[in-house]
């Protein structure tokens, strides 16, 4: 069984700590992750902007890197969601289409893999803090990852969960959207930041570093001290502290 990590360019470059937490946590269950070094970006920024030729160039590095893996796991519902667009992206390419379909079937977002495949709901973590959760759009809507993170958090000892008002509303990141429509995106992230502050949580947790980068950036801009973490980090920290 080859289980591979698709780190995503964002976590690779900005948040390697998230990948590390995933690797350590899964090792506790005997999963030894592989890391194919030829992977780059899933191609989503180009795909979503309409530059599909460019998206295919980038996507091919992913398809090649994971061709011989049995399971591909990523800390992002959005990038895993992008893998689900690959069959459409390569619909007219008889060589790459089967590879795209194969990758789609074996790709999992991190909590999906942990809960659905490994069957783990309680990692044995202790995390005595007030935590709120932002469900990222692509993970929850496109992949349907809704219950998995809640299930995992429910089993963390000491964790006080505070629901985020309007949790399902987009944080306003949207990739190039944040650059092309800065004021609309800014209004959206400001509202999201307001809601996070309203919960009086110490920690904001999520499953996608792009959204968390966006929200954390806003919280920091306004001088809020809320700690922003990926759920993998929180679980690993909680297990270490247990």
């Amino acid at each position: 069984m080859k289980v591979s990590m698709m780190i995503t360019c964002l976590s690779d470059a900005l948040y390697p700590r998230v990948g590390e937490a995933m690797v350590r946590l899964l090792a506790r269950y005997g999963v030894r992750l592989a890391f194919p070094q030829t992977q780059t970006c899933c191609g989503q920024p180009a795909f979503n902007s309409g530059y599909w030729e460019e998206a295919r160039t980038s996507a091919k590095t992913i398809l090649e890197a994971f061709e011989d893996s049995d399971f591909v796991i990523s800390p992002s519902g959005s990038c895993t969601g992008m893998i689900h667009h690959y069959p459409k992206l390569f619909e007219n390419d008889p060589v790459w289409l089967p590879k795209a379909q194969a990758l789609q079937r074996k790709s999992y977002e991190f909590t999906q893999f942990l809960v659905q495949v490994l069957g783990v709901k309680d990692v044995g973590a202790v995390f005595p803090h007030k935590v709120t959760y932002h469900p990222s759009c692509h993970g929850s809507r496109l992949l349907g990852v809704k219950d998995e993170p809640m299930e995992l958090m429910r089993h963390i000892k000491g964790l006080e969960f505070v629901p985020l008002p309007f949790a399902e509303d987009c944080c306003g990141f949207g990739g190039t959207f944040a650059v092309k429509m800065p004021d609309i995106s800014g209004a959206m992230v400001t509202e999201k930041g307001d809601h996070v502050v309203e919960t009086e949580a110490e920690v904001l947790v999520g499953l996608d570093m792009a959204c968390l980068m966006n929200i954390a950036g806003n919280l920091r801009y306004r001088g809020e001290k809320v700690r922003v973490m990926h759920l993998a980090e929180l679980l690993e920290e909680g297990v270490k502290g247990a």
Partner: protein
Amino acid sequence: MSGAATAGSSVKERAKLALNDEFLRKAVKFTTERLRNGKKAASEQHGHWDEWRERGRQIRLHTIAHLDYYLNLFADNARKNGVHIHFADTGAEAVKIALEIARRVQAKTVVKSKSMVTEELHLNHALDSIGVEAIETDLGEYIIQLAGEMPSHIVIPAIHKNRYQIAELLSADAGETLSPDTTVLAGYVRKKLREKFLEADIGMTGCNFAIAETGSMVLFENEGNARMVSTLPKTQITLMGMERIVPSWADLEVMATLLPRSATGQKLTVYLSGITGPRRETDADGPEEMHIIIVDNGRSLQLGDPEFQELLNCIRCGACLNACPVYRHIGGHAYGGTYSGPIGAVLTPALKKNVAEWDDIANASSLCGACYEACPVKIPLHEMLIYLRRRKVEAGRGNALESAGMKGFAAVMGNAKRYKAALKLGRIGQKLVVRDGGIRAKLGPLKGWNTYRVAPSLAKETFRERWDTLEQEIRAGLREMDPDMKERMERLARERAEGKGGHGHG
């Protein structure tokens, strides 16, 4: 078509105006929240919602896939009922037919119930040009007609006006001061329009659904004005998008289940009317003459287009507007077309086939998928937005700077070595601007981002640079896998190889 709210040539400029209008933002948020909470409660209470959505989608898909059959059947049956049917390829043609009817019956006034198609055709303006007064009778539509504006929401057209603004408009209309009290204002409109209904020469309606097998047209409404308009004047003209068809009354049950719940959270609108032809000979009310104008106006462009045909499934409930976080912040006028929100962002360019001109609307979405999730017939609007963007790029109409950027993206991301080199360069470059692990400078491409946020800095070491160390660490402490887990993983891999299993999209 006028008014400050529609000024500005790009969605970005119009959005900026909207974002600076505190009342507008609050009103839009409040209304969309009310409607989406209503929808959520109603769909949960009804239960099996996804099964109903799927059924609705299947009925719409089926009807559109056989539209020539069903539309033909509808036209034949409606004619047998005594309706005069007309076909219009374009908006201009539809307007011409409507004006000809108005001239023939020597109409002085037309009372109208809510119809997005007539908005699309700017029919009121055309009627006015031949000296026919067109009066909108839906309360919200009447208000925005007095203001000389366009609807900013397909279900709540005057969402952007407060009661003081409305009192001012209605006071000017009444020639006396009306207090900004909803009951007073609505009471005035009831009285005023009651006279108009009774004296108008033509009643004009839209059409929510048309039933092919019996040639009936169906209207959903809450105020009763659509009933007035289709009961009192001597002549009725109905403007109907060519895709409004459902095969049977049985199919209407599914639409009646989905539409009101999705639009306002109601179990059913106060009035649901099925009209089958003009008045019967012995009837003492109902129109003597009834016309239905079936309008294409760009709709058929979606037929046979696998990426956009599903747009024709839309039942105009407005749920996507209420769910959309962008609409929530900028309101309807910022979209600059008849239809706003996610459906407008796709429908407007699709109907006009001028993707290039409307592209900036397609960009006004974070692709969060809330519209798809809210849609009662499951139209994948978030994907259609991407297809619109792609078509613009393929047509060679992409933004030059962005195109260059994307070429650079492909060059870097097409190869892991170049990607690693680029990250190293970035790490050197950012030294100039990083303070305390973040970037605050509003420079170059970070200007927009850093107006609302602090940008993160690149990590000292990337994950891939850390990999070897990490690998050694876990190899040392690796545990034995639980046999159940191992079994499950092997089974999943096996099933996948056999062509079953795996997990699909959404």
